[in-house]
Every structure is written in C-alpha cells, then in structure tokens.
C-alpha cells in the first residue's frame, strides 16, 4: 500500500482520536466519559502504529508525520474533522458511520499481500470490535430519535471527502501541535 493511503488511515484515526477526547469530562454520563476517552486512546494508538509503517517508507518518523505537517497536508476524511461537541446525536452518528466504514477498510487490509500491514490491520480490528459494539449499542438506543437519523443522513456522504480542509481542522491542529511547536528540539 502506498504511504499516501496509509496516511489517510493514520490521519483519520489521529484526528478522530482527538475529537473523541474532547468529550472527556463532559459526556452526558460518566460511562461515556470513560468510553470516549478509551476509544480515543485506542484510535491514537492505531494512528501511531500506522504512522510508523508510513514513516519507514517515507524515511521520516511517526511524530513528524503526525505533528509536523501543515493542516492542509492531512489526508483525513471530512467526517472526522468536524468538531461536534456538545452535539451528542451527531457524535453518535459519526461514531456509527465511521466504525462501519473502518470495518470495511480493515477487512480489505487484513487480506493484503503485505504481511506486516495485514497483521497490523488484524490487530487493530480486534480492538475496533469493541468500538463497533459501543456504536451498535447507541444506534439501537437512538434508533427512533429524529436528530440521530438526520445526523446519519448528513454525515454518511462525508466518509470519502478527503480533499476539503475545514477551518476547524486548522483550529484542532493548533491545539494538537502547540506543545511540540513551542519547545525547540523536543522529541515527543
């Protein structure tokens, strides 16, 4: 797989991880603070492993790929760029839409000829199974909720939109890279 395609995946997971972490401390119930924080941690862990694969191909490091590109160089989907706090219905809709698309992508990668990538995809998928169960549980709870269904219709078309960079991605990038940019020579 080309490094560019790997970056799409890694960027999706990194940015979604940050977006999910925005619920830490302010989710509608304590269980969801824990759930979204945990999911965020997993997604960022996946991003790191994917960046490491891409970094080897590109002769750079995972941290440089994650934090030293400009916001308009990111290849993440418009779906994950959106800042959805405090809208719970749209957050759950994004979760459902993303996990469904990610499952299809991981299934394809598990069958890849590149053994290392296939193995990593299979490992990621073991963790994602719990994200999907969490999304499924909420989709069942909100099945009759108009705001949730409207959000699904709104967000589904955004999965493959990768060429557009929303202003809110730039704002997130400022926050995400602030420490790294402020300390010269830092290695994190």
């Amino acid at each position, binding site marked *: 797989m080309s490094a560019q395609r790997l970056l799409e995946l890694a960027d999706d997971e990194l940015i979604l991880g940050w977006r999910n972490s925005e619920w830490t401390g302010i989710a509608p119930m304590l*269980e969801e603070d*824990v*759930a979204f*924080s*945990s*999911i965020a*941690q*997993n*997604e*960022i*862990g*996946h991003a*790191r*492993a994917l960046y*490491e694969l891409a970094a080897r191909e590109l002769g750079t490091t995972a941290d440089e790929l994650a934090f030293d590109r400009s916001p308009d160089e990111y290849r993440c989907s418009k779906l994950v760029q959106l800042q959805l706090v405090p809208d719970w219905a749209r957050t759950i809709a994004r979760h459902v839409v993303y996990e469904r698309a990610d499952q299809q992508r991981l299934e394809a990668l598990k069958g890849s000829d590149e053994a*290392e990538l296939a*193995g*990593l995809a*299979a*490992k*990621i998928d*073991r*963790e994602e*199974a*719990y994200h999907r*169960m*969490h999304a*499924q*549980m909420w989709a069942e709870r909100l099945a009759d909720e108009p705001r949730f269904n409207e959000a699904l219709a709104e967000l589904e078309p955004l999965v493959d939109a990768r060429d557009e960079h929303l202003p809110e991605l730039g704002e997130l990038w400022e926050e995400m890279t602030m420490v790294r940019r402020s300390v010269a020579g830092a290695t994190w």
Partner: protein
Amino acid sequence: MVTAEQVWDALAEIPDPEIPVISLVDLGVIRSVDVAGEQVRVEFTPTFLGCPALEVMRDAMTDRIAALGAEPEVRVITDDSWSTDRITPEGREKLRASGFAPPAPRENGGPQLVQLQSKAFRCPYCGSRDTALENIFGPTPCRSVRYCRSCRQPFEQFKTI
C-alpha cells in the same frame, strides 16, 4: 554467559504496569527469547496498541536483561499474534484472585455485543453468573465494567480480544 531460561525467569518477575498482580510472562506478551553470546533478543507484542504501559514494559525488560550482564534488544512486534487466549492459566488465576474476571476464550468471529449483555460472565468474588454489563469500557482499554447482582459488587472484566 546468560541462558534463555535465566532471561525467561527474569522477565517473569516484571509485573504488568497496570495490573501488577500478573507478570509479562503470565500475560503472554513475550513472544520469543533468543540468546546469542552476550546478545539477548526479545520479541514482544503489545496487548492494546494505545496501551501507555508499552514503553514502561519495554524499558523494564531492557533493564532486567542488562542486569543479567547481557546486551538487550527488545523488539515490539505489532502483528496479530497476541490474543487474550495467550494469558497463561496461572495468569488467569492470579487475575481472578485479585478481583479481575479473566477474559472469556475467543470464539470464531470474535466477541459480540449480545454475549457481553448475556449472563455468561462469572463474578470473580462470589462466582455467580448473575452479572450485568455496566460499561464496555473501563479504567484501561483492556477492561470492561460489570456488576454482580448476587453479591452486589461491581467488578472489572478483562476484554476478550
């Protein structure tokens, strides 16, 4: 000269940083130990990719092997070879004894929500199966939270992955 057995014994003394009742060997994350002269190469697999204990484990292994007088090389392998099925029987018993319900065996197709919501999970304190899922996620990515209706005690359930 150090032997592979000495290395395994040393690694068996390193506790999991987040669940210190079990060792890295109990957890099944050490995939191989190769000794060639003074060089010791260890391959290990993370449990969860985002696990913050990864670096702590790697540094602890490096230190222990260096303490044996060998030159350590610890390689992190992010393939699909680790599953909770690799936790040893001793490790499972240690988990249970300290109030962590050990993971259920992995079945084909992986875990399903309907299973988590069923009464298939046993309370580590009283042994009852009258337990309910409280939250798929818990204090670390590898754990869920359940509640035992019999002894009225919440407990942590190791996820099956």
